């Protein structure tokens, strides 16, 4: 399936590329990245998403697109509740509200942190639970877990964990309204309750990073970023809680579809109309799991503060350890857009894509309203990460969405065949990166060569008007699950 280039960085998959497409596919990519997406068969998945009932505009894909399950990773689809539009849990994914949090410090790399990087990474390793099957920093009773599902970051705040400022700089201020904990199964609560404040495994990580270059002074100033500054980037999600919510609700929708007369090209695209009660149950459960994900990153932030306190022998507040922003890249949200000259509230699915509201958006914290929403883009392990902002054109380009990372280019199996975890560790350490991993054997799965070039991905985002570069950060310490 060969998309057609319609303008620089924009490729169209025409209606008819697969049977039943209701809108075209639009892929934002360079010539090199589109080739990878074609080889990967992810373009086919863009076309499959275009068959969903009630889809509006186009089935979009971000430059870090790769083959996913049902939806491509990097896929964006907006559906209209008024026009038989559907919700598809596969368009959110199993790791509901998986996302990235950037934490800044007032510490300078060369002068203050470089001499202490070993003890700092060790301290982070002690304070950040990680790996498969690990328990979190807060173990919850059933009642407490239900509060987290309803209240998000407000629950740990009520227990003295974190600050009001942390909540202010989290998407939705750390709490999604209209969460329905009653739609979260006992099994999901059983899985998630012991895991609040844990990193997990796979591509989840914590990195100590240094701001290497600033591209947009005004935005960097608003975020308190400066060259040479040490930051921490966290990537994790809703853990077993979200995984089980998705599992439960996909099963329900998969069984409902034949009676509703809905056919999809891949069963993982299972969906029901937004007006259906099963959709409302899923949305309520998804929001609850999203609240858990925000609370998870909030509680981990406390661990980061304690680790810095241990490593530098000073109170974390003296070190200026503060949240820059926290944003999800696996979520569906009801958002208003101007479509065909009419304001419509659409259900925007972002699967491996980040919301990127432009300047002036009312949902942004006051400090960021003039510059646009911060977007946090982790690179592959050991390579650069980026801070971007949404632009004036983001909404018109792809329902205010941009990329979410480098995007995998190689399967985990193949990555492990090329090098061992120990070889990857040696290479990263030779480049001055200090590591703490739960299991070295799995490190090769996440090696830099298994991913696309994140710099190329963000350059396309900027070139296509999806978002704008603010800062580049390089890793100096990596803590992996």
């Amino acid at each position, binding site marked *: 399936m060969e998309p057609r280039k319609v303008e620089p960085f924009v490729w169209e998959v025409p209606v008819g590329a697969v049977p039943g497409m209701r809108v075209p596919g639009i892929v934002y990519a360079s010539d090199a990245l589109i080739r990878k997406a074609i080889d990967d068969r992810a373009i086919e998945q863009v076309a499959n998403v275009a068959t969903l009932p009630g889809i509006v505009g186009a089935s979009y894909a971000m430059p870090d697109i790769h083959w996913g*399950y049902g939806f491509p990773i990097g896929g964006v689809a907006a559906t209209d509740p008024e026009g038989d539009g559907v919700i598809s849990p596969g368009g959110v994914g199993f790791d509901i509200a998986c996302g990235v949090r950037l934490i800044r410090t007032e510490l300078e790399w060369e002068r203050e942190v470089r001499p202490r990087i070993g003890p700092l990474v060790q301290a982070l390793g002690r304070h950040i639970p990680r790996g498969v099957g690990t328990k979190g920093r807060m173990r919850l009773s059933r009642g407490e877990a239900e509060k987290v599902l309803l209240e998000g970051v407000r629950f740990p705040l009520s227990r003295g964990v974190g600050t009001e400022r942390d909540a202010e700089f989290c998407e939705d201020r750390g709490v999604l309204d209209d969460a329905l904990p009653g739609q979260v199964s006992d099994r999901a609560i059983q899985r998630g309750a012991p895991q609040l404040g844990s990193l997990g495994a796979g591509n989840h990580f914590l990195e100590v990073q240094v701001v290497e270059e600033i591209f947009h002074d005004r935005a960097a100033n608003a975020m308190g970023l400066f060259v040479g500054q040490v930051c921490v980037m966290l990537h994790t999600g809703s853990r077993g809680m979200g995984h089980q919510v998705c599992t439960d609700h996909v099963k329900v929708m998969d069984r409902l579809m034949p009676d509703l007369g809905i056919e999809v090209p891949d069963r993982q695209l299972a969906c029901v109309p937004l007006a259906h009660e099963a959709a409302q149950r899923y949305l309520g459960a998804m929001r609850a799991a999203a609240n858990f994900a925000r609370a998870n990153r909030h509680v981990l932030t406390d661990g980061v503060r304690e680790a810095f306190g241990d490593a530098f022998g000073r109170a974390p507040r003296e070190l200026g350890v503060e949240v820059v922003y926290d944003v999800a890249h696996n979520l569906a949200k009801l958002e208003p857009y101007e479509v065909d000259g009419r304001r419509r509230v659409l259900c925007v699915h972002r699967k491996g894509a980040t919301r990127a509201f432009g300047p002036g958006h009312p949902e942004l914290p006051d400090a960021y309203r003039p510059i646009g929403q911060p977007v946090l883009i982790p690179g592959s392990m050991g390579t650069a990460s980026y801070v971007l902002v949404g632009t004036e054109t983001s909404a018109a380009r792809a329902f205010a969405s941009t990329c979410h990372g480098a995007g995998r280019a190689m399967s985990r199996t193949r990555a492990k065949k090329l090098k061992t975890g120990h070889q990857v560790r040696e290479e990263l350490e030779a480049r001055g990166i200090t590591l703490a991993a739960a299991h070295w054997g799995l490190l090769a799965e996440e090696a830099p060569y298994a991913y696309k070039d994140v710099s190329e991905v963000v350059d396309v985002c900027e070139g296509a008007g999806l978002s704008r570069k603010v800062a580049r950060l390089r890793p100096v310490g990596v803590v992996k699950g």
Partner: protein
Amino acid sequence: MSAGYEILEHTADVGIRARGGSLAEALEAAARGLAELLGAAREGPGERRVLHLSAADPGALAVDLLNELLFLHETEGAGFGDVRVRRAGPADADVEVELVPLPGEQEGVGVKAATYHQLAVEERPDGSVELRVFLDV
């Protein structure tokens, strides 16, 4: 496919292709494949537990079985010895699983869920069955 299954490559995730002389055998092979991926395949003896599964069709049954095993692995720290499908119809099954406690942290792949993505069940003229299930990792 000497163990009755093979691990399939996928850009971000992994899959299992499992084969058996019947649906029951194919389900057992898929369970062994998952246990290997999780690093949770163990020799018994262990606690025997019977799972009663109900799903829309044989493919969904396979997804359900793997998701049940993931749940037990995550919530009880369980490894898996013998997995025996006592009865398998097209839409329900009784599966006896031998649960063997795993000490400490796990070194296998962290699997979030079994998915319906490209889910396939092929019944051959000789009665043998081949299943394909992808997992989100």
